[in-house]
């Protein structure tokens, strides 16, 4: 059985005449270790799809199974645990906590797990080392560049070694050179066995994906 199985996912917002269908019945399967690109025009439903796959946005109907777990049969708090164990998030606007240092931002997902201080620190330093930012561990987010912030976000998403990485426009705010570095980094993580689902507008970034899910008006219009 596939690692991620989405069946007829529908997500509607609002009621009655004001109902907006963000996702109109999307099904797909993703194997462990795949690198998937989700593409489509603005408002097509890509980010909604990513949030549904990210266990943060319950679909109106349909089901999502990850590693044979029916994600939306879990309670809200169980879904929080699921996100912590299974998912890493990379956001377009980085979403770093401004008053925590680079190292502390990376350690954030470890704040709620039972592990020694040194162990947590080691894990965070390992993740930072993977993204090449160990030298800037003690800087605050406003003291590093956009590309470096993205790397910190990646380090934070992989620090607890989740099997799945969800990236929402990871290169959306970056120049082409930095974008290329970030994509190489994601590719390297994928090569290490991490399943990656990446929403992107960029055809350059999409080239790194093994498969593309093309979304238009809330439905899949093409799969490569």
């Amino acid at each position, binding site marked *: 059985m596939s690692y991620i199985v989405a069946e007829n996912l529908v997500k509607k917002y609002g009621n009655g005449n004001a109902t907006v269908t963000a996702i109109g019945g999307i099904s797909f399967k993703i194997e462990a270790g795949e690198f998937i690109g989700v593409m489509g025009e603005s408002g097509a439903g890509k980010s909604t799809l990513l949030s549904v796959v990210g266990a943060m946005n319950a679909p109106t109907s349909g089901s999502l199974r990850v590693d044979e777990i029916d994600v939306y049969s879990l309670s809200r708090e169980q879904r929080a645990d699921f996100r912590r164990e299974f*998912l890493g998030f990379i956001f377009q606007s980085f979403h770093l*906590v401004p008053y*925590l240092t680079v190292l502390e931002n990376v350690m954030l997902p470890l704040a709620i797990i039972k592990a020694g201080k040194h162990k947590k620190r080691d894990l965070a330093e390992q993740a930072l080392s993977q993204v090449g930012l160990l030298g800037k561990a003690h800087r605050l987010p406003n003291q590093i560049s956009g590309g470096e912030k993205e790397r910190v976000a990646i380090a934070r998403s992989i620090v607890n070694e989740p099997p799945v990485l969800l990236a929402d426009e990871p290169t959306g705010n970056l120049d082409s050179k930095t974008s290329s570095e970030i994509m190489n980094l994601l590719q390297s993580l994928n090569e290490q066995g991490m399943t990656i689902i990446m929403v992107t507008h960029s055809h350059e970034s999409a080239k790194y994906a093994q498969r593309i899910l093309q979304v238009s008006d809330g439905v899949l219009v093409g799969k490569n």
Partner: protein
Amino acid sequence: MTLKEISIRNLIRRKGKAAFVLTGLVIGVTTVVAIISFVEAMTSDINHKLEKYGANILIVPKTENLTLSYGGLSLGGVSFEMEEIQETELTRVEAIKNARNIAALGPLVLGVIQVNGHRVLMAGVNFKVSGILKPWWRVQGELPDENGVLLGTEAARILNLKRGEALAVGEKTLRVTGIIEPTGSQDDQLAFARLATAQALFNKNGRVSMAEVAALCKDCPIEEMVRQISEALPGAKVMAIQQVVKGRMEALAQFKKFSFGISGVIMLIGSLVVLVTMMGSVRERTDEIGIFRAIGFRRGHVMKIIFLEAGIVSGLAGFIGYFLGLGVAKVAIEFFSESHSISVPFDIQLAAASLGVALLVGLLSSAYPALMAARLDPNEALRAL
């Protein structure tokens, strides 16, 4: 990185807001501590003064006669045909439950003597306890021996007697050993002799007309002392002289109630300051809380962060507020009280209570903002940016 570290970092980052919450709570705690310390110090001072008031309980024989004197004027003369108390009965007073609160017990025998053609009221007293029972006495000369007499200033003037002079009482001659400086009380018109001397003169050996008790009722109501003495002496009438003290205590009690009301209002304002500031803080941190929830923080984790922040600030406010309140109370006492002997001591119970109240107010006021933060939907929080 722990939840506590996240809370501390946030407080350091949002210094202004943390300082605002801290100030609100410190003002509240300071006011409450200052008021309580002030009232407690004043109460303690009044209790202390109780001792200086001397006798505050009178034991007299039960009588069916009504008093024929008012405001110092006596109509129909002084009647001494009243019943008396056996001196031995008074020992029972020393066995009452609150006997430790009795500072002094002074038996007193009264009688009239004729001196130089004047009738003078003589009181036989125990001079060993007169210092406690009559602390306002200032004696020029010495306390009398068995052949001596102490005169009130008016009595000395009317009888035209000076220190060292003798007076004949019946067959006995007594020497004036001292004169009491004016007291403004009935004592000015009396002659005082030793109890045994007076009992012998009036032929009342083993009997007393009345007894005065100085009770230190800091920890017990004076009514309770009166009840206990009445039970011990069923044949006597026991009365409390407490109007002045009671009046002051009642005024203080009313001030206490008013102060607690004001403290309550101030603490309510403090809690509103915390509530509004924490709500603002949570709104400002929507993205941050969204990230926390997205990466797997449970609702409880988010609430814990908010409560830790509130707890740290409130605890600090309780600590600062207590010591600031003590200082304010000291200044207020110096300003409002004429007494220079009042002290405001460190009270561990009040310190613990102020810490507890500050924490309670801080945490209760943060409960709604914490709940609001915990209920933030991560998807909504991140999408709203």
